[in-house]
């Protein structure tokens, strides 16, 4: 175990793929190490240049949980030399290959728990400009080597996993420019710009992008573009596709494309590239619309006796022209966990939510149908959190009170601001709560889908029915728009042994455990996605397709798959950009 067989450790000054804190996230996602950042590992210095020494230190500290690290291949070594000749930083160190072989998908977390790396790249490269990206892509094109762009590695769909090896093109050094053009209401940012850093920069100038995905602290701007990301405030500000004014990207033949800001003719090149998950072009720079940061915020929690009433209220709020920055609706189980119900959360459910009491959790997850039915039998209500922004308290209250009147017509009960404030404070913490659940031998999948209002409730029930026999299902409705909304399901199921157990068994037993875990996870995932497709909903609202949803893309697009193939041929004639994604 460890670094055997790799060429790691030969150069201490080479760049590292991941920030120490990111590495901790990757590892802690499995519950195998503490998720708290250690000394010197805070995020404040993570804006651009990776700190290889600190990264290696974390690897050494936790190398026992990574299993055998990937070996550098002959191809990787040759590529590293050629990339270095282009004056682009590159590495085929085992630590970098290991970290570049996974993202934050449940599959990646299960690999980490099982100490395997099924899809390592051959080499990792860190270009610093569009020109360097173009040179790298041309090099890859000549040799027909895959190029997989990766940003913060926070994707949950496996979109940045290098399924066919090749070059992982890490965009985190594409941090220039970073320039606010307040006069024109825009900010220019390199694709590798960290989301939190951008947010802080804008905040200092009392400006905002209005984009707040849960992965803000670690994700990059380029990653947002690649998956057409949506954040917490999307009801008011839209998805990132609504924020992009123009962008620079490199296509698969190594040409630099610069879309135009303002009126242009023909199909919108910029919008066509967004969401292409690195399969058509690699984003290097973007110009984004920014707004004045509102001074005041109004928040309320409203409880409804039924999901149906709650959905009707949220729909009417949006259809009335009001623009809440938050409009989040929780199903009865999610509402129970939110702690606003008069009904106290039963202790076993708390264990389920928190991953505490591993044995109890595992016992409960052995009978998911029973568990779901027991929860259905509890007297349930649905919580809606509404928020409005404005420059004065009167402005926000005016919209908020109008929304409350609509909620009142649908029998909503105003719970006041406190539960909503609590909800908001915890909203960004949620994704990082998965660690103890994985450590306890469970898996957690999040499935974000979307549909129109008339189909939303039927979709919710269909997915619950499809998955209830295999996983505990909770959901909330978010990203509300006048035409419909997204639904984010959380599927909690049993996935083999605990992390402690797996770490102490021989390698083949760990791999068998992984196989069982993947089978269990795939079964519920496929059942849920089949239900989504059957209901005519879209299979991904904002997480992308990646490798986890690809099998269902043909059901989503139908004959549009032919158009997708044509786009691939046009933008990536050598078929080197993120192969195996979107099109197999």
């Amino acid at each position: 175990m460890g670094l055997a067989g790799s060429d790691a450790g030969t150069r201490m000054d080479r760049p590292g793929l991941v920030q120490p804190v990111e590495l901790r996230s990757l590892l802690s996602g499995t519950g195998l190490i503490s998720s708290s950042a250690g000394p010197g590992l805070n995020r404040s210095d993570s804006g651009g240049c990776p700190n290889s020494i600190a990264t290696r230190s974390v690897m050494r500290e936790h190398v026992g949980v990574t299993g055998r690290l990937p070996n550098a291949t002959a191809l990787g070594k040759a590529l590293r030399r050629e990339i270095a000749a282009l004056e682009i930083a590159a590495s085929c160190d085992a630590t970098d290959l290991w970290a570049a072989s996974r993202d934050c998908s449940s599959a990646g977390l299960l690999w980490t728990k099982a100490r395997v790396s099924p899809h390592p790249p051959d080499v990792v490269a860190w270009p610093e400009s569009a020109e360097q990206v173009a040179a790298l892509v041309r090099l890859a094109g000549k040799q027909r080597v895959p190029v997989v762009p990766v940003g913060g590695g926070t994707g949950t769909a496996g979109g940045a996993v290098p399924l066919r090896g090749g070059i992982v093109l890490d965009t985190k050094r594409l941090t220039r420019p970073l320039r606010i053009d307040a006069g024109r209401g825009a900010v220019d940012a390199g694709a590798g710009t960290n989301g939190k850093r951008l947010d802080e920069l804008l905040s200092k100038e009392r400006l905002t992008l209005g984009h707040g995905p849960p992965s803000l602290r670690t994700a990059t701007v380029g990653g947002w573009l690649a998956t057409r990301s949506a954040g917490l405030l999307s009801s008011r500000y839209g998805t990132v596709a609504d924020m992009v004014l123009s962008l620079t990207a490199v296509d698969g033949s190594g040409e630099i494309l610069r879309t135009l800001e303002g009126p242009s003719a023909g199909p919108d090149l910029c919008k066509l590239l967004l969401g292409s998950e690195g399969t058509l072009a690699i984003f290097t720079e973007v110009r984004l619309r920014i707004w004045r940061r509102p001074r005041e915020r109004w928040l309320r929690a409203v409880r409804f006796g039924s999901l149906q009433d709650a959905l009707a209220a949220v729909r009417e709020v949006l259809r009335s022209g009001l623009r809440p920055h938050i409009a989040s609706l929780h199903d009865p189980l999610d509402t129970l966990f939110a702690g606003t119900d008069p009904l106290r959360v039963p202790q076993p459910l708390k264990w389920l939510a928190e991953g505490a009491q591993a044995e109890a959790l595992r016992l409960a997850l052995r009978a998911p149908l029973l568990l779901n039915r027991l929860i259905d039998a509890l007297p349930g209500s649905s919580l809606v959190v509404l928020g409005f922004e404005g420059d004065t308290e009167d402005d926000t209250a005016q919209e908020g009170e109008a929304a409350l009147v609509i909620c009142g017509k649908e029998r909503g009960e105003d719970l006041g601001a406190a539960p909503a404030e609590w909800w908001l404070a915890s909203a960004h913490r949620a994704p990082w709560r998965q660690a103890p659940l994985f450590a306890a031998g469970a898996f957690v999948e999040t499935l974000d889908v979307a549909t129109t209002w008339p189909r939303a409730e039927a979709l919710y029930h269909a997915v619950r029915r499809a998955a209830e026999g295999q996983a505990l299902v909770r959901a909330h409705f978010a990203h509300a728009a006048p035409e419909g909304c997204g639904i984010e399901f959380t599927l909690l199921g049993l996935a083999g042994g605990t992390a402690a157990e797996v770490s102490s068994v021989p390698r083949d037993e760990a791999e068998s455990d992984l196989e069982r875990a993947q089978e269990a996870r795939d079964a519920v995932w496929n059942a849920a996605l089949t239900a989504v497709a059957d209901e005519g909903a879209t299979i991904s609202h904002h997480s992308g397709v990646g490798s986890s949803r690809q099998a269902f893309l043909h059901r989503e697009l139908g004959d549009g798959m032919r158009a997708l193939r044509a786009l691939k041929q046009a933008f990536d004639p050598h078929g080197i950009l993120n192969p195996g994604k979107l099109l197999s």
Partner: protein
Amino acid sequence: MIAREDLAATGVAVVEEGEGLRLTPPSAAALARAVAVVRAYRLPLHVRGSGDAPANAPAGGVLFDLGSLDRIASVDPAAGIGRVEAGCSVAALESAVRRSGCTLGPLLPSVRAGSVGAWLAGPTRGERGIPGARRQTAALTVAAVLPDGRIAEGRAAPAKAVGPDLDQLALGGGGRLCIVATAGIRLFPATLAMPSAWRFPDVSAAVAALERLCEHRLAPARARIRAGADGATLGMVWEGIQSAAIERDRAGRILLEFCTPAPEVPPNFVREPPDGHPVEVDARWASLRAWSPHGDLIFFGLHGGGAFAVLSLPEAGAAEQCAALARAAGARVIAPRRLRDSGPGWEAAGAGSVWERLVVALGAPP
């Protein structure tokens, strides 16, 4: 003519027109079958919907007349979606959705005069203003006939992340890569418009005020600026069941800091047709400010970056003169059709080669 027989066999009505053929498909399926035949014979093609500007069949090619594809399949006010065929006129769709308490919202005159297909495939890409000073295409979904005759249609959802947005191949494409057959159109609830009017020393100051409101995300649904003897008048209306009055009042508080209300403005000020021979443009705010010394403006689809605008010269100046001045100001002329600027396309973005490969890969007519 073998092509003619094969085309007739697809179910479309075939009529000789000039040096080509005019095809009238009775359904989207027939359109798809005929497109496949056209591709097989590598015939040049044009597309025309009902109400669109006249277009002739190209020599040795075909003109698809979608005027018969004018059915409105459904209008769902609760969902806020209307499903319609591409040949339906925008005016007819607006009438139909009004009966259900909905509206398409304020649209450019040229858009209202054309078909849904022409709106979506035309230079505006079906975009219009939405609350919050943003612009969004009206098409929630597009069913587009690909050159091989297959119909591609995505799922209806407010947002999705399932690879590149394939609807973008049809939107603004002018039928070059694929043909819009049907669409799901986003509808707004119809409401009373909340008007507001203000006085400014000149047109330029009024344009700047409008831009400022957009920066505050308080863009009106439509607006008009007219020059007068003693300055300029800015009239605006907001729409939205709950939001119109709120946003109008907020805008008023901002404007009060540097201009005065104009209570004497007639109620129809914003809706009256423009003078003379106007042109329609897609322009950024800098271009609209640069235009301001020349004449009047009517705004649609206002957003943080600019707006669609109808520009007109006083003294009934010629459209050509109006268009020339608009271009000099940096705006892109989109109507009337005879004056339309081709505009910077993929070539200007460095994607000329990609475009050529895409045309080949899709099998679109050369």
